[in-house]
Structures are given as structure tokens and as C-alpha cells.
């Protein structure tokens, strides 16, 4: 690939070191762990490794997946967004309240969905604005808006749930397209979209630069503030997408929707090899991360492990995966 001249020795050495560094990447390690886990789980239950089951799991992981994708961007810049679960709840409530034929607005469903997405985007934008323009650390900002948005959801909904959506609304959350759950297509599209953006575009490159050295990025002409606001806004938008799909999947809106989602999403991102300090990570890793978590949940349940036992396993896997990665990175860094 490079035009500089090498002796054959050199390039061979380079090849082998390249293979080594590829094998030592967190994504690859994680993929190996995942494959081992799948094999192990497949032993536990013969119903685990079936198309039906796996597709169905896809339905369940879509919301976390969507949020984890945008969370990857945020964590790579060294930030965090704890408010996504609350934004999801707020958007779901907005969707319901706007549409509710007995309510004050009684808007057409399409309009309600658009408003829902707008509100989510706005909520993310407000996060970004506070973080970038006022300089409040992301952790505190989103801790505050975590409470604020959930409070708004509860306040606006009057704690009532909205139900009885028209049948066509459920296509997104419960229907199928070409034999695959509809929302999986959405997730797939966003996976590809975000993966391409992060790895192939100017924007993605800038995100890594910001995460590694924000000052350096600014000196290189990267509009750091604008990009950061953009990713928090995007995070809000993704939470709103997740809310839409979620409402469609469970046929109802409640103000407590999505609570705790942020921790699941962060766990998936961190498991996927994105450094919580920022600067490194990938969408592929995140995808493997949230798939692994869902497969563990599902596979363990099918093998007869109860929900609480599964939680323990996931927590352990999270710590161990980071530990192994730390260990390997340090070894290879020194060697």
C-alpha cells in the first residue's frame, strides 16, 4: 500500500506485526469471546441457535442498540450521556400525549411521531448546549437532565399511559419485513450508517481527534463545539427513535419507559472496546457488545439461568473483558 521502499524482511515483519495487532484488537478479542459464548450457550439449549430465536432477540435489542450506537460517538469524545433513558421516556410520552384521541392534542399519528423525534432531538441539543456552551461536565449535565427529562415525562403524562394505537402503527415494532423483524432493518441501517460515518468520514475522524486531544483538534480547525453539540443532539434523536420503536413494540406508552437504559447502553459500548476516557473505539465493537449482552441474556435464560443470575454474569463479563483487554494492551504496549 505504501510507496516507500522496504526490504522483503521489513514488509514480512510488518505483515506479521499487523496480523498480531489485528488479533489483539478489542473487537477481535470480543468476537472470539462472543463466539465461545455462543458455542457454550448452544450446548446449554438446542433452541438457542435457531433463526427464529435469534431474529426474535433482534427485536429485543433494537432500542439498546440504537442508543448504544450514538453513545459510542459520545464516549469516544470522552463524554457520557446518562439521560438517554429519560429522553426515551419523555419521547414516548410525547408521542402518546400528542396522538391520544381523547387528549388535548389528538394529532394524526404521523405528526405525533415527528414531534416525538423533534422533542428527543431538542432534548439532546439542550444537553449539548449546556455541555459545550456553558462548560458543565457531561456527567453532571446528563445526570441533571436524567432527572429533569424523567420528571417532565411523569409530569406531562400525569402518570397515565396511552394505548390503543391503530394496527398499522405496530408494523415497526411487531411486524416483519422480508421475514426479519422490521425494527432490525432500522437498526441495521443505523449500524451501517454510524459505522461508515465513524470510520470513513471527516466527521468520524474528527470525533476520534476530539477524544484524544481536544485542544489539538481545535488547532487543526476542527469545529469541536459544533461537533460535540451534534453528537449529543444525535444521541437525543436516537433515543427518540428507540422510543418510537419501543412504543410500537409494546403497544403502550408509560412514563417509566427506558429507565436504566443508559447503563445497558454504556455497558455495551464499554464492552465493545471503547475507552471510557475517550479516543478509541468502534461501532463494530459496540455492535458486538450489545449483541453479546443480548445473547448472554437469552442463552443463559434458555439454559435455565434466571434473570438475576444473568445480571451477575453480565456484570462479571464486563469487568473481565476490560481487565483482559487492559492486560493485553499493556503487554503488547511494552513488548
Amino acid at each position: 500500500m505504501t510507496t516507500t521502499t522496504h526490504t522483503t524482511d521489513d514488509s514480512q515483519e510488518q505483515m506479521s506485526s499487523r496480523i498480531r495487532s489485528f488479533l489483539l484488537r478489542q473487537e477481535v478479542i470480543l468476537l472470539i469471546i462472543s463466539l465461545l459464548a455462543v458455542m457454550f450457550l448452544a450446548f446449554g439449549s438446542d433452541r438457542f441457535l435457531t433463526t427464529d430465536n435469534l431474529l426474535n432477540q433482534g427485536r429485543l435489542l433494537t432500542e439498546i442498540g440504537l442508543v448504544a450506537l450514538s453513545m459510542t460517538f459520545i464516549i469516544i469524545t470522552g463524554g457520557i450521556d446518562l439521560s438517554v433513558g429519560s429522553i426515551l421516556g419523555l419521547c414516548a410520552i410525547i408521542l402518546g400525549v400528542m396522538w391520544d384521541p381523547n387528549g388535548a392534542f389528538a394529532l394524526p399519528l404521523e405528526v405525533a411521531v415527528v414531534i416525538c423525534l423533534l422533542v428527543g432531538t431538542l432534548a439532546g441539543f439542550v444537553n449539548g448546549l449546556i455541555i459545550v456552551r456553558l462548560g458543565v461536565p457531561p456527567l453532571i449535565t446528563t445526570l441533571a437532565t436524567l432527572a429533569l427529562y424523567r420528571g417532565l415525562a411523569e409530569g406531562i403524562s400525569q402518570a397515565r399511559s396511552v394505548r390503543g394505537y391503530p394496527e398499522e402503527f405496530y408494523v415497526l415494532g411487531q411486524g416483519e419485513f422480508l421475514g426479519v423483524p422490521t425494527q432490525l432493518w432500522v437498526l441495521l441501517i443505523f449500524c451501517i450508517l454510524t459505522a461508515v460515518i465513524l470510520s470513513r468520514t471527516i466527521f468520524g475522524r474528527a470525533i476520534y481527534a476530539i477524544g484524544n486531544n481536544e485542544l489539538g483538534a481545535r488547532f487543526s480547525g476542527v469545529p469541536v463545539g459544533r461537533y460535540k453539540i451534534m453528537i449529543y443532539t444525535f444521541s437525543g434523536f436516537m433515543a427518540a427513535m428507540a422510543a418510537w420503536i419501543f412504543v410500537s413494540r409494546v403497544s403502550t406508552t408509560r412514563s417509566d419507559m427506558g429507565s436504566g437504559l443508559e447503563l445497558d447502553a454504556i455497558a455495551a459500548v464499554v464492552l465493545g472496546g471503547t475507552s471510557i476516557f475517550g479516543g478509541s473505539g468502534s461501532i463494530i465493537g459496540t455492535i458486538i457488545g450489545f449483541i453479546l449482552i443480548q445473547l448472554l441474556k437469552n442463552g443463559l435464560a434458555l439454559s435455565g439461568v434466571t434473570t438475576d443470575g444473568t445480571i451477575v454474569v453480565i456484570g462479571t463479563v464486563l469487568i473481565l473483558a476490560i481487565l483482559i483487554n487492559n492486560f493485553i494492551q499493556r503487554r503488547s504496549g511494552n513488548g
Partner: protein
Amino acid sequence: MQEKPILELEHISKRFPGVQALTDARMDVRAGEVHALLGENGAGKSTLIKIISGVHKPDTGDLRMDGQRVVFNNPREAQAKGVATIYQELSLYPELTVAENIFMGHAPRGLLGSVDWRAMRRRAEEILLSLNITDLGVDDKIGTLTVGKRQRVEIAKALSFNARILIMDEPTAALTEADVQRLFGIVRLLRERGVGIVYISHRLEEVFTLADRVTVLRDGHYVDTKAVREVTSEQLISMMVGRTIDNLFPKLPAQIGEPVLEVRNLWRKPLCKGVNLTLRAGEIVGLAGLVGSGRSEFAQTVFGFTPAQSGDILINGKRLDIRNPGEAMRHGIAYVPEDRGTQGLIRQMRLRENVSLAVLRSVSHSGFIDNRAEHELADKSIGSLQIRAFSGEQVVNKLSGGNQQKVVVAKWLAAKPKILIMDEPTRGVDVGAKAEIHRLISELAQQGIGVLMISSELPEVLGMSDRIVVMREGEIVAEFSREEASQEKVVAAMMRDAHSAVSAQGAAT
């Protein structure tokens, strides 16, 4: 002055991955002397003082205090033996008070080993008083103090260890003139009390003002130790550089054209106060001045990093409003920042990614990065700047300082600027790379780029510039053509006239 040294270093060698930092270096410090340590950047001064202060352990060689061999495993052990160090980057806690900063880690103990705040404050006050420092409250928070005051706190901190050896690493680098004078007063006071002071500075005139003896290092090797009275600045420079400096500055003749950049009455408080400057195509303008004189601040204002508060910036005669670096770049301005570690590079990223970071648009199609174009760009940069790297895939952090600097330069050259501002382009770069960078600057000017070169190295400024502009306290105070400029004149302009007479010999770093 006692002849018996309190600290001796012999046959010190230290190797870092990829660099032999010190080879058989030696030095000795006597009580009650100011011992200047001179050398170019990369000569090994920093490594040497880090060995004295216990941060690094030498690979070979001995440290002796009062004739006894000592080994410092960490800074604390060195402190316990009376070696205190004031680093360039002050190591203070911004949220804590002056008294606490002075005594962090060794506070006076009271009941049950608790921190005795009363005694701590009293002793802090005593120390400050003993240094004739009266404008510092011991309860002030560090975060609210000026740089000069913070440094006085650092000195007080060093004294709180009852230091017998005080190492000062470029203490005047970021000080205002008044603060420099106060610092000198304090240093003299300490010398009278029998403290041995190791003083590192870029500025030869400070050495002549303050020091008793001087040790020179070059490329990690010990050169010589002399009494300051017996040596001239020319001798010192040749000891430091070790060769004639002509070939370092291959200034080529260039066609000087129309003004590309005109700055009129540019304000950005606090360090850019009504600056006027014109830069022509093909011209190299050297911007001299002490650190803290506002050179970088001015450059960053032109570059839009800290947008101007008032005043005009004209590019090719057109008035422009530059609000951020992105806009500056679009108008053909490039800025090679002063600190490549924190400003110039994303060190954890690959060479290829760094080189293309500022010009991603040129290697991409509608937002998507073209990998092949990016590789070509990286390879071209590696080739044309002779960057010593395996390939564009190499992580920049693993390159040597000079090569890292070349990457920064390559990054900005990739932007094909019409106006190139270089802030300390050769800081921390070895001599060979320095000459290459100088040649490059010359070539760029030949191609019609206007170059504004900020440098603390007077020989560089004198050797490379068509015109030299001097800044002091945020204003432009003097301008010399290449012909009329001399070290004396430039230094005189940099400093206040009153004491520039002390030594106008120029500061070769």
C-alpha cells in the same frame, strides 16, 4: 564560597526507548552558588535534573551528596535529602491555598499526627517573609493567582523542605519583567543562605547576571564547566552548538511580492494590544519576543483560535472576519502551534491521520475519506520531509521529537497555505532536523508563501528572517530589516531598555 561540592554527579548515562538522552554527563554543585546549566533543547538538561530530583534513575553513574553515594528511588527521597525542584510546568493544586500547596505531603503535624493548620499557615508566612514576599496571602487559592505569584509559591514550597539544592528549570520562561527581577532577588537571597542552585535558562544574559559557574551539555554529552567570569557569551554559544551556525540557516533568496496578510490595530486582551503587521508573499518575518510577550497570542488571534475583539485582518487586501481556525484555514492561513504535544498533534493517532487532519476535505469526496488519497498524502509527506517512520500507519507517539515536529509541519503544508505562521518551529528538535526544517521554510518562501516565524532562538530569527518584528507585553515595539538586525538590537527591544544593556548577547537555546 565553599569549594567542597554538596552534590556531585559522575558518569551519568541514561537511555530512553529510541533516544540516548545522556552519555557520561557530570556536574557538581557547591553550597552558595548559582550553577547555570546550559544546552540546546534535547541536550539532556531536563533528563539530568530529573535524575538529580529522583524522577529518573540513571542507567550508569553515581550521585554523591557531601561525598556520600546516594540513590534516589523517587522524588520524595530526593526531597528528604534536601533536593528541591521547580519544574517548568508548575506542580501546584489550583483549588488549594498557598499554605497547603507549600506543605503538601509534609505538613506540620499536631495532635495525633493531624495537620496543624495554624503552624502550617504560620510557617508558610515565615517562609514567604524570609523571601521578602509580602503580596501573597497564605489563604489565597492558587487558582486565583498570577503566574509570577504561583512561581513564588513553588519556591516557597521548595524551601519548606529545607532545600540545600534548588533546581530551577527555566523559571523565567513565563514571567513578566517585574516578576523576573523579583525572582532574581529571591535567588540571590537564597545563595547568600548557602543554598546550591542549579539554574537552567535559555537566556544567556540571565546566566551572566546571576550565575557563578556554568556547565554546558551538548547532545547528551558533557562539554565543560566554567566560571562565568572567565567566559564570554560567544564561547558559551559555540560550546553549546559545537559548530558554526551558518549552515543551520540556509536562507534562500526569494521573490518578495504583494502583502498577503495585513493586520491593523488587532486587539485581543490581555496579550494582543493593537498589533499592526504586514506579511508579503515570499517573505519570512521573524517574530521575536520573550515568552509571555504575546507572540503566540497574536498568532492565535490571527488564526481565529481566540477571535479578535477589534481590529482588522486583511488577506490579499480583503478584509475578513475570522472567528475560528476553520475559517482561517479556508483563507489560506496555517498555524503550526508551539506545543506539538498538546496543540499540534493527536499523538495517539496514526501519522496518516495526523497529516490529513487539517485537510480532510482535500482527501475526501462529499464527506467520505478517500483512503488511497490519504495514504498518498501521508507517503508524500514522509518522502518530502524525510520523516523517519515505517509508514503512514505508525502511531505518532512512537516517533522522535524531531520527526513529530515534521509531522506537524507536514500537516500544515498539506493545507497548501498562502500564509504560514510557525510558532517555535524547531523547539525540541535535534540539530539535523532543525536544518531540514529551516531549509523547508526557505523553500516555502521561495514558492511565494508568506511565513511568520515565531521563535525564541535569536540565531534562528536572525538567520532565517527577511524582516524581524519584536513584541513586548502585547505590542510590537520594534522592527528591523535583515541587514540592520543584530542580536544586540533585538534583545534590547525584547527586554526593557534599562536592563537589556546587561547582556545583549542573545539567547541561543
